């Protein structure tokens, strides 16, 4: 099934049902997502999902409604169109309806790899087997996922976009009796994944965490690994650089303010080198690079068409499916790397902590971005530039904005790594911060 053909069929159905004056937009996504999970060093879950998803939004005289369906057979398309048309007619007018995306050129090429699209369960199982063998003597757990999605967007204003994206991810831990170590790899191409390397790295980390000590809570200098930094970026993007949150006073961000250290530059770019993801958003706006922070100063926000219209700017291509209440959400964040190595950053720390991953982080207040969470998969005490011993997991309560404030960023490494996040991805390096507020040990 060609997704763009399916979009055209839906738009024809809308015109036949509601007339030529109805505005409509449709997205069709098809493809395969497959994920092989392992735990206790064996594959315990192994799933393949062959999907077709359709979303149509109809606006008649400023009244809008959406319908979604799975499958592309005529009956399902017809039911979705009828549902959207009938529902739109009884809706109150939407005073902030921004209209449809106008025609633009073709979307940028998405990340795509044929080998990944054709990856079989045996390919994923092979990568898992390599990981498991590499942690020999420890227990292994994690997942290997391949996705290959093709999507199209079309609307009655003439915008037509096609794109496709593949991803391959290997994310696992090695488990020693009292400590875990993690490793993750992500790419558009399954051929880039190295199961043995990932397993060996996780095992090294787990073994180095044996016999951890408890540490008193307080503020510590820290070196945070790319997984932790991705978490910072995710919350800054979702809560902070969100144009809607800014307009409603729920964000710290004000364009033009130097809220961050001059070493900090943050942007979103699904079309960037090494990025993954579809090349257009849910409203048919093509993805492009959008800068949020340049040398410490906030310089841009994420918008969908609604918040962009209210702010008098163009959409930045950050609308998400079903995200009318959220506003624009970045999904391919980058933090600018610097020249140092992660080892350099640790070497500069006189007394502090090296943290591998964060876990279960939650925002206490979206305005201040005070966040609580725990460390995971390896925390180490550093003295005079050397890792001296492992530390038990700690709970922190820390403002993510203040963490990157002027003067608090002591260094940024060059090891930027594409990392899968709860929503989208982040490409971030290891960073060195002057202060991070730990509020307790995980054991109480």
């Amino acid at each position, binding site marked *: 099934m060609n997704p763009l053909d399916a979009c055209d069929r839906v738009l024809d159905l809308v015109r036949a049902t509601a007339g030529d004056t109805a505005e409509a937009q449709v997205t069709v996504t098809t493809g395969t997502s497959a994920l092989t999970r392992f*735990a206790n060093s*064996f594959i315990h879950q192994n799933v393949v999902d*062959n999907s077709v998803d359709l979303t149509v939004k109809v606006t008649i005289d400023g009244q809008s409604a959406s*319908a979604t369906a799975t499958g592309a057979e005529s009956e399902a398309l017809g039911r979705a169109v009828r549902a959207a048309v009938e529902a739109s007619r009884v809706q109150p007018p939407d005073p902030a309806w921004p209209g449809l995306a106008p025609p633009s050129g073709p979307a940028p090429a998405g990340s795509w790899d044929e080998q990944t699209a054709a990856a079989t369960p045996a390919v994923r199982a092979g990568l898992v087997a390599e990981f498991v063998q590499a942690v020999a003597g420890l227990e292994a757990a994690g997942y290997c996922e391949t996705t290959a999605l093709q999507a199209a967007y079309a609307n009655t204003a003439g915008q037509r976009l096609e794109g496709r994206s593949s991803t391959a991810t290997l994310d696992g831990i090695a488990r020693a009796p009292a400590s875990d170590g993690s490793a993750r790899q992500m790419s558009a191409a399954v051929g880039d994944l190295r199961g043995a390397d990932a397993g060996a790295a996780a095992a090294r980390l787990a073994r180095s965490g044996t016999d951890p000590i408890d540490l008193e809570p307080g503020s510590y200098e820290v070196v945070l690994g790319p997984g932790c930094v991705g978490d910072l970026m995710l919350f800054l993007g979702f809560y902070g650089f969100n144009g809607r949150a800014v307009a409603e006073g729920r964000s710290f961000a004000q364009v033009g303010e130097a809220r961050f250290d001059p070493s900090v530059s943050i942007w979103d770019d699904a079309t960037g080198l090494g990025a993954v993801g579809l090349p257009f958003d849910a409203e048919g706006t093509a993805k492009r690079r959008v800068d949020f922070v340049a040398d410490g100063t906030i310089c841009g926000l994420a918008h969908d068409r609604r918040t962009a219209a209210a702010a008098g700017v163009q959409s930045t291509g950050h609308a998400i499916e079903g995200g009318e209440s959220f506003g624009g959400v970045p999904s391919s964040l980058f933090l600018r790397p610097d020249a140092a190595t992660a080892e350099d950053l640790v070497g500069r720390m006189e007394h502090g902590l090296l943290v591998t991953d964060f876990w279960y982080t939650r925002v206490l207040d979206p305005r201040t971005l005070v966040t609580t969470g725990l460390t995971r998969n390896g925390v180490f005490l550093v003295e005079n530039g050397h890792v001296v011993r492992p530390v038990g997991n700690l709970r922190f309560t820390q403002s993510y904005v203040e963490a990157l404030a002027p003067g608090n960023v002591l260094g940024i490494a060059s090891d930027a790594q594409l990392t899968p996040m709860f929503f989208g991805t982040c490409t971030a390096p290891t960073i060195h911060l002057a202060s991070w507020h730990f509020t307790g040990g995980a054991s109480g």
Partner: protein
Amino acid sequence: MFDIASAAVEAALAAGARYADARVMLRRSEMMSAQNGDVEALRQSEGSGLGVRALLGSSWGFSATTELDSVAARRTGTQAAETARASTAVPGPQLDLAPIPVVTDHWESGCVEDPLAVSLAVKGDLLVGVTGGMHRAGAPVAQASYQIWDTEKWLVTSEGSRISQRIRECGAEMSATAVGEAETQRRSYPGIGGQYGTEGWELVRRLDLPGNADRVAAEAQALLAAPECPAGVTDLILGGEQMALQIHESVGHAIELDRILGWEAAFAGSSWLDLNRLGTLRYGSDLMNVTADATLPGALGSFGYDDEGTPAQSVPIVVDGIWVGVLSGRDTAAIAGVPAGGMVRGDGFNRLPMVRMTNVGLLPGDSSLTEMIGATDNGILMDTNRSWSIDDKRLNFQFGCEIGWEIRHGKRGRMLRNPTYTGVGPRFWASMDMVGGPDEWVFYGTANCGKGQPMQVGHTGHPAVPARFHGVRVGVRG
């Protein structure tokens, strides 16, 4: 639909599976959201498809398709078996399935007023009315939404069960956010994310959103000027909504047998519980009695059969403070040597059924919120969850609430903003010394429980009452 599922099961067996089951699922859903008196989104969804599980040796495979015909069903059944065959490249120990009865049955949840049949105008007027009212009452951001799910399932197992179910669920929520100089404050009703159940629209009417709108808006504004929750160790009274979250995070997830066995270790985490201590471990005080009861009428975690065809049941989890039960499916139960608990569900036809909470709740005691306040000389009352974080063994937690009140000399005093508390599960539960009675027992519903990879969103219920805890650390700040 049974024929399509049967074709998939037959194909999986023909491809080498020693056990297979197939679920055809049709789900219609609807959500509407409004802000400040305007409807922002209305989405109606219809999804249907087939999901097949195949067990080959000790290895599982799962495959799903949106194509509902016998050809696609056979192809999907074969793919499930082939995926299981790939799993045998990294095999686990021998895997058995705990026995369950072979059943042919149909089950439906109760529903007085079909929520999808209620007119969009009525539903829209409700959201427009309450958000407009809260906005006019001073809330800069006033939001409300409802969600409805109408799910039909047809399950066929290679052991001979053929079970159909229709489960209707709905619920609603509203919130007011006040914006201050340096922070925001939010009040939600009936709680963060709303209140949901396996009921019809009568549930939403019963919530009485309009009757609470002014209070919610006023409390959000008042919180901006309220004093900060003091830091220290004190007696803590939790309202019912926060108790539901406390149960969900520090009991519900901890007793999931797949976690205990390490199957979720890399992502959601494991559990502090050791199966060798099932039946002897003290989880909390003598007042702590917890069940996982999938038979409670109207509760969000209720059903007739789980997605393996195990009948819904009530399983004791904690009795007089002693840990006695787990949440299980057929494979995990066989490993642990316990009966199949009937707690395996999948989020949609295209998601592998896995161990999920049913209605994990605290049984009522003999006190009341009024009595708890009256019996507390120095403490804090907190309610309505705002943030939640717990470690990967489900021990160390830190929860924030939307609102708190000082308790002095048996009376509720001034409002407190940014209340938080932290603790370690068994120590916290051991400090519970007063538990609300049957009159305060509410079946809270959580419609956004994330678990699994690919991520699945589960619907879980949490019967809860207010309770008092002694010597709790509060007021943790960044």
